């Protein structure tokens, strides 16, 4: 073990080494004016020299003046789309002479490798693990995808203005296990990655790469780059004390702040879809015209829909006030009782991808202030 130096020009060797192990490599790539997660065939598919500018309800990609490969923050996609599929068949059924026959779905599950997983995202995956495989009721599809997952984590060296992992204690430095962890360093004319293995498989890949041991100075430069991201967040408007979230929200379930946010919220569900930890899904049962064949599909759902809380007679949460309150209280408070951690990792996706710029950190502040009034 130890920290090694991989020249930026050799980054493709990493991707090819992982591919040669039979992994389907997915990671950040530029598409339709955003840095999305999709299949990568080579280092050239990465958003080389691109960054993003994010604020409430807006996201733009911009050219950087250097050739950084990982010089941007969380984008519209999260890794959950590869582990908890947006839509998947659960089972099929066929009418037969002997009644109904249930047909199992045979899923071809790829050996996935995620390149460029940020610290907050490792936390998000760990949170989803607790939901889907941490207890007696496991989601088989998730479990299969998760089992052979290879992760290359990347330390954040610059934060978007929407990032607040510092407040949630989930970044910017990678602390959770990954197969490989990297820090990108751009210093003068030099451009390299500090890379270290975190598993046997990771070490094996590392051995195939043209790396050399990193010097103390180089490691220090890497740490300084990560500190830079911390400083950006510490000085930014979204830094807050999250230690009392549960008590705060439990005390304020009738806060007038919920009415104010409900005036603006579209109950469109973009926040929950973009959130890397939101795990809710629904099942859709249907038949064909003949009624001989039936299917059950699982699909992402959100507490912002009326169907989500629909029981005989109507929706329990018919209005936006109760839906927004459910979402925010679940993320920051009830999640702690349910799964023993916060449901928010501070990635800022819900802030940027909310069409009307509703900001969870601002709502925390508002609730706090209105309580004092």
């Amino acid at each position, binding site marked *: 073990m130890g920290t090694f130096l991989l020249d930026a020009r050799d980054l493709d060797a990493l991707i090819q080494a992982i591919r040669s192990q039979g992994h389907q490599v997915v990671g950040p790539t530029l598409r339709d004016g955003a840095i999305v997660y999709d299949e990568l065939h080579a280092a050239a598919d990465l958003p080389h020299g691109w960054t993003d500018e994010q604020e409430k309800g807006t996201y733009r990609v911009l050219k950087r003046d250097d050739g950084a490969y990982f010089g941007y923050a969380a984008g519209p996609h999260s890794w959950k789309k590869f582990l908890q599929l947006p839509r998947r068949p659960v089972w099929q059924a066929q009418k037969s002479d002997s009644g109904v026959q249930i047909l199992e779905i045979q899923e071809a599950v790829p050996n996935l490798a995620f390149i460029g997983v940020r610290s907050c995202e490792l936390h998000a995956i760990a949170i989803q693990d607790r939901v889907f495989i941490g207890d007696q009721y496991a989601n088989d599809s998730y479990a299969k995808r998760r089992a052979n997952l290879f992760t290359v984590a990347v330390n954040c060296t610059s934060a978007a203005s929407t990032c607040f992992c510092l407040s949630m204690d989930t970044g910017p430095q990678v602390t959770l296990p990954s197969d490989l962890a990297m820090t990108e360093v751009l210093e003068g004319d030099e451009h390299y990655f500090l890379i270290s293995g975190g598993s046997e498989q990771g070490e094996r890949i590392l051995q195939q790469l043209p790396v050399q041991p990193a010097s103390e100075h180089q490691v220090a430069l890497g740490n300084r780059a990560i500190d830079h991201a911390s400083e950006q967040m510490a000085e930014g408007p979204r830094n807050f004390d999250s230690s009392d979230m549960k008590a705060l929200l439990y005390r304020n379930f009738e806060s007038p702040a919920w009415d104010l946010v409900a005036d*603006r919220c*579209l109950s469109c569900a973009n926040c929950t879809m973009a959130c890397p930890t939101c795990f809710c899904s629904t099942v859709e049962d249907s*038949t064909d015209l003949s009624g001989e064949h039936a299917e059950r599909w699982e699909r992402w759902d959100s507490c*912002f829909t009326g169907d989500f809380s629909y029981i005989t007679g109507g929706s329990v949460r018919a209005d936006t006030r109760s839906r927004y309150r459910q979402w925010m209280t679940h993320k920051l408070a009830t999640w702690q009782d349910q799964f023993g951690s916060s449901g928010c990792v501070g990635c800022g996706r819900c802030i940027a991808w909310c069409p009307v710029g509703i900001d969870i950190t601002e709502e925390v502040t508002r609730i706090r202030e209105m309580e004092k009034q």
Partner: protein
Amino acid sequence: MVQHSRTIETAETKPKLAVWKFTSCDGCQLSLLDCEDELLQLAEQVEIANFMEASSVQLPGPYDLSLVEGSITTPEEERRIREIRAQSRVLVTIGACATSGGIQALRNFAEVDDFIAAVYAHPEYIDTLKTSTPASAHVAVDFELHGCPINKRQLLEVISAFLHRRPPQIPAHSVCIECKLRGNVCVWVAHGTPCMGPVTHAGCGAICPAYNRGCYACYGPKENPNTDSLCHWWQQELGAEKATVIENLRNFNSAAPIFDVASRRQEGGDDQD
């Protein structure tokens, strides 16, 4: 919201399906014709008792399932929709015209006599109502299938559901959910393009955002929409003109009460009908 409705009675004979046309372009009925393979399957399951677009056979009622296309714009149509309702066990409206007045509901915001005078050489031959309204303004409707035009996959789903007495899987949530399921990059947030997705009923599969343009609400309002907040952000943050906002509220579903009220409010006019 999935609502159970009166179910089709079991009978020895095949259930009778009827398709009815009111004021419309026929596009939604075409979606049914467009089903091709499934149409043959459908013909095995039901007796097609009335479908003028496909066949001149017209069988008398009662009908087990009536699909109604088009809005109500004439006194004759007002009468006919009641008759059809009385003859139908289940009545499903299909498309923007039948569910929320269609494009022709633009007359609701102006004087129809002025249109008639401008278009027809002999206005005295025209016997029309001042408004274009959805079937639901006249009779009880068991299910509304939105879209301009409707999507054939959803139409088959609704027919299958009513034939087999199960709730149709036609979620009333936003287009944004479909957009996110599809992995689209949000055109509103990433490009600053005004998009009606957050207030629009799902069903199309977020086609427009997938081609980098804004949704223009052809499926009408979703459940629990917040048009005020959307219109505010379009104008304040995305720089949309008021005329653009009104045009989008009045595309194909201007008589949907939520869009009607919102567009009148934008105009600064009163909220009355």
